[in-house]
């Protein structure tokens, strides 16, 4: 009887430990490794156009996915967290594929043709009345080449 009780206690402790380890690993699991992840490939003009023409289709193809976008750099700046922001030209003046870089590269400059890999967070409409078009946003970006 006593032995049986001890076995049950042992099983319970083992189960609790197992649950703790699983919980700990889940809680501390790393972010997606964008650099090495498989990506959906496209170019900046096509990516922007797809969100303009059929938002639902674009969302199912790109949203929250790792996307590799090729395009021409329109502007390079720094955000408030000192992360590089690279804007890729689209067919709409003033509208960009807006890429926040995880690794800054000093070499990128306006006019360069680049390939950037990042997670597509979607499109934010600007203010048409005020003449400010929206952007398609990519986060955690890396230059592919």
């Amino acid at each position, binding site marked *: 009887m006593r032995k049986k009780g001890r076995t049950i206690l042992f099983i319970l402790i083992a189960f609790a430990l197992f649950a703790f380890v699983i919980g700990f690993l889940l809680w*501390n699991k790393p*972010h997606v490794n964008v650099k090495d992840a498989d990506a959906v490939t496209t170019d900046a003009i096509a990516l922007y156009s797809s969100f303009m023409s059929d938002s639902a289709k674009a969302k199912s193809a790109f949203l929250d996915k790792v996307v590799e976008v090729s395009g021409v750099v329109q502007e390079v700046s720094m*955000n408030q967290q000192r992360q590089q922001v690279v804007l890729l030209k689209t067919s709409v003046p003033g509208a960009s594929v807006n890429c*926040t870089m995880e690794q800054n590269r000093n070499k990128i400059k306006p006019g360069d043709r680049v390939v950037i890999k990042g997670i597509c967070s979607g499109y934010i409409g600007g*203010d048409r009345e*005020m003449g*400010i078009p929206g*952007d398609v946003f990519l986060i955690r970006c890396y230059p592919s080449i």
Partner: protein
Amino acid sequence: MKRGIIILLFIIFCCSYCNSYGQLYFTKNGRISFFSKTGLENISADNNQVLSVVNMETGALQFSLLNNAFFFPKAKMQEDFNENYMESDKYPKSTFKGIITDIGTINLNNDGNYHVHVKGDLTIHGVTKNITTTGDLIIKNGNISATASFKVLLTDYNIKIPTIVTDKIAKDITVTVSCNYEKKL
């Protein structure tokens, strides 16, 4: 004579067009962060892809961000935030549309830190609430930056916390806004 009138009308049109953008400032890479002190672990996240437009003539002010662009130190926190709390698939954006009520006190030609009052509609998780808060507009050499900080009560926006962690997670979060604007040409 007719030609002269057409030219005059054209000039008037151009002037009014330029003037409508004259006081307009915007950013597409503003920053909104939030912080919540909890019994389990402090929760913080940053979103550096905030679109904001401010009209310095009328005081009209707007912010818009994608909820899934918040970056958390831990992947699981980010997953829980998007899937369980914000339901980002269903409610992808958070927005604010309002007005700087004391815009008249700001002189763009005078550098300085202007403490301003803001009121408007904050939409989070599909729920819109009218809020009032204060902030600072910093004018320096014709450039404008803005900062503000306010609290958001989760229950106000129908954000449900699972009962198992209810006691461990704060009922409100502190939201911090920081934007550097550029002039719309």
